[in-house]
């Protein structure tokens, strides 16, 4: 078995075309080309535009990654690619490219889970200097997903404890930013504005927090660790309308701060609850929204109070990237797992329990 495999990872599940290369747990390159600028005028990621951008970006990003890492394709021990979850058309570009790369180089290919890769990135860059800790959980918050995971073993024991049942948290930020006439992406714009606002000015709803959804630790309700953000967006819209109807100036900063507080409060309270009830003592915070100032602050505060050690990877490793795919791929290779072959399909809703696709 190869102890320090050289693995190239390909990510194309949303609007980032990522190619990363790792040697075991050492990061050699994390090269990303983003189509975010092309989505700005639409106020959200447009799948067809993202897919077109992946096609144009793939070979240049691959070339840049190889140059940056100072390795050749002939040196690779394995290739890993995101097979899901994500946008179907976008996934297909990365998967087709990865398969062509595998055929042309004769290198084994591993089809892996994007969400678990967000956790796998924790082995890189000194995030966890001694390797992934035990009793690990992961809170993933981005424009495409919002999940709390229990991670027993990166290669074969990951469990979804809770997730959003409608919009992702990042999506809620984008939609709210649109209502408030702010730019895209909404997260940074709202976070910036919220600094000058009063987070207690308006009490926006915390979705799925009523007892009928929560239940108790012994008899959990149907959505004890799940989130819902679509009602929150509607509440913001209604609030804006009330000010407009009354002819009052819109307290944009207060609305932004109150919205952000509602999102961050419900994310962190449910995540910490899930950790406490599942013996999780180490929590990794990942995904693009991990860069949000208030989310980091309140997660840290509540984790500390609950005796949970919080770890946040470097921002470039939190957003979607190829290095995380390579990192998880390397872990799977190091455990001697069989490659996925080249006949597999993409799965836009791949469950976290499928960490790598078996040979089809």
């Amino acid at each position, binding site marked *: 078995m190869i102890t320090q495999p050289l693995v190239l990872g390909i990510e194309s599940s949303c609007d980032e075309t990522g190619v990363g290369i790792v040697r075991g747990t050492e990061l050699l390159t994390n090269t990303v080309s983003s189509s975010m600028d092309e989505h700005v*005028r*639409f*106020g959200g990621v*447009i799948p*067809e*535009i993202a*897919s*077109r951008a*992946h*096609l144009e970006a*793939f*070979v240049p990003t*691959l*070339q840049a990654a190889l140059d940056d890492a100072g390795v050749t*394709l002939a040196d690779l021990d394995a290739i890993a690619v995101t097979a899901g979850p994500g946008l*179907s*058309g976008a996934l*297909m*570009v990365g*998967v*087709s*490219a990865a*398969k*062509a*790369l*595998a*055929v*042309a*180089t004769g290198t084994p290919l591993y089809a892996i889970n994007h969400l678990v890769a967000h956790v796998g990135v924790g082995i890189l860059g000194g995030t966890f200097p001694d390797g992934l800790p035990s009793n690990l959980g992961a809170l993933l918050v981005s424009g495409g997903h919002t999940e709390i995971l229990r991670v027993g073993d990166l290669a074969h024991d990951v469990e979804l404890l809770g997730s959003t049942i409608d919009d992702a948290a990042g999506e809620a930020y984008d939609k709210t930013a*649109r*209502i408030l*006439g702010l730019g895209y992406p909404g997260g940074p714009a709202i976070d910036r504005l919220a600094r000058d606002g009063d987070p207690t000015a308006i009490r926006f709803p915390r979705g799925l927090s009523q007892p009928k959804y929560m239940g108790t630790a012994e008899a959990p309700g149907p959505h004890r660790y799940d989130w819902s953000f679509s009602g929150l967006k*509607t509440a*913001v*819209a*209604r609030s*804006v*309308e009330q000010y*407009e109807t009354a002819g009052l100036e819109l307290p944009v900063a207060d609305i932004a701060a109150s919205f952000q507080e509602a999102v961050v409060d419900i994310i962190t309270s449910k995540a910490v609850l899930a950790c406490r009830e599942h013996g999780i003592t180490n929590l990794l915070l990942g995904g693009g929204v991990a860069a949000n100032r208030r989310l980091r602050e309140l997660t840290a505060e509540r984790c500390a109070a609950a005796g949970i050690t919080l770890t946040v990877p470097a921002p470039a490793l939190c957003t979607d990237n190829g290095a995380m795919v390579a990192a998880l791929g390397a872990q799977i290779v190091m455990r001697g797992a069989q490659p996925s072959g*080249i*006949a*597999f*399909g*993409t799965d836009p809703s791949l469950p976290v329990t499928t960490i790598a696709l078996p040979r089809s």
Partner: protein
Amino acid sequence: MLLLALDTSAAATVALLLDDDVVGRFGSGDTRSHAEVLAPAVQRVLADADVSGSDLDAVIAGVGPGPFTGLRAGLVTARTLSFVWGVPLHGVMSLDALAFEAVAAGAVGGTDFLVGTDARRGEVYWASYRSSGAAVPELLEGPHVGAAGTLPRGLPLVGRAASLYPADVVAVPAFATADPDAVSLGRAAHARLVARQPLLDTTPLYLRESDARVPGPRKRATA
């Protein structure tokens, strides 16, 4: 001249050609599994012929027009193979493949004709050609996408659009259900290379914008 051709503007198809001779070929039965079947097909076609990628003189890719997702799977595959093997990459308009095949079969001798394929949503991808006796028919107009009823009237039409919209077009019967295919694509490319005619790069011919709409100014917050 050893060419590997891929066309995914309709079905996923792969062909290995030594000049005009087909050494190996693959065609999928459906139009929605390109990302699954294409790479295994390339691998098998090359292995069966005992050819390695670096033996190729060029990789040829059909650049559409065709449904976007399948088209992209073919183009990213062709670009990646060419990049890794270090062999030249050329694009051929997918409708050219059908035009070439129809002329080679003598089905449209001496006349102007149309090629039309299924663009879904009640529309066709089409182009018009002149068959002037040369191996490679001359592209007169297109490619375009539009309703079958908007095509130039009275010209015989090669391709699946003839069986989808029989009331709107004049079918060339032998080609009424034909789709672009890697074999004809490879042959069309070979004829051009031999005649020292230019080929395309692999920019996809989408012909349609993405369906995205720029949101208009907000009137009411709850709108």
